[in-house]
């Protein structure tokens, strides 16, 4: 199980904000942790998947997408802040995320 530090959270937040700023063609300071992914940023599930792939590579994670899918059904995210928290849980627990 990976240790989540303040540095990890900052890294994850930076990646998430950069990603949405580029995808949505807006400035990073237009996105906050309260931004709604769908209504404010026009996000979709393929963007979510792409972001997960980025984190899988960055942190060399051992987790199947469908495991994350099962977790996301029970724990849906709506805001950027919730998305960051979910990514941290994925990094921390990988394939055991369904056990938490």
């Amino acid at each position, binding site marked *: 199980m990976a240790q989540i530090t303040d540095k990890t959270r900052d890294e994850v937040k930076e990646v998430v904000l950069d990603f949405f700023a580029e995808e949505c063609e807006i400035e990073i300071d237009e996105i906050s942790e309260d931004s709604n992914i769908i209504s404010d940023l026009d996000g979709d599930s393929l963007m979510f*998947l*792409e972001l997960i792939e980025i984190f899988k590579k960055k942190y060399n994670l051992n987790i199947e997408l*469908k495991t*994350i899918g099962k977790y996301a*059904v029970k724990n849906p995210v709506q805001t950027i802040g919730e998305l960051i928290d979910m990514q941290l849980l994925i990094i921390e627990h990988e394939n055991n995320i369904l056990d938490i």
Partner: protein
Amino acid sequence: MKNKTAFIFPAFITEFTRNEIEFLDKNSVDFNDYLHRASVALNIDLPEFSYNTDVYRNDELNSQLLAYLLSCAFSDILQNKGIVPELIAGYSMGIYASLYAAQSITIEDGAKLIFSAYNLVNDITGTGIYGMGAIIGLSTEDVENLIKNNAPDVEIININNEHSLVIAGKKKDVVIVLKKAKEEGAFSTAELTVDTPYHSKYLLKYSDSFQKYINTISIKSAKIPIISTYDQREFTKLSEIKSEFIFNLTGKINWNKTMQKLIENNVSEIYECGAGKDLKKISRFIDGDYKMKSIY
């Protein structure tokens, strides 16, 4: 080797960017002319377009015609600006705008082909028996297994990319597969708002009648090569175009492989010629050294 430009054409409009009308206005295009030409050719009345017009939102045929005509208009704008594609591909019903862009058919004949295909399959459209669905987040193998174990008559009729595919069949079976897909860990599933199981075995029986209708339409060889979404071959000849119409209606397509074929052919700039940004969205997970160019 020289980098190439491609145009790709969507099939339906799932969501407008709401920049479409501004783009037409900015380029001094009166879209009513396109609607009028199709209306006269089909002897119907296509009203003025606005984003909220119910006649386009709630009617499968009208929404297909609108998607086609907007695609034609956008292709005209780009080509008039000197952006001419070296390759073309059309996603599903996007084939008609593809052939218009390749100067193989007129706007009127494309509209007639859409109208004819729609009316041909009318005995199954609107019955409420058939449907289509989209699954995001499972592999093709996962979905094949779900179909095999739960509703074997359902077919995967298109692979958009590594993580997104489309199924078709009887609506009740499609709903079962979508439900099972969600339980299996799909990120999202959705019933599509169409009553026709396009690209499935249920449309095979219409091949001969559609072929007969195609033979009544004046079609020319394509001036720009088109990549088949059915088997990814490049075609321009009249006989190939006629066959492609049939494959495109009744056969399974593979958008992922079609995009890969464009990229293998050194396409580095791809313009999505149509309303919305659906093709840009599904281009995620299609790797390669290319750029999806925004037209507005």
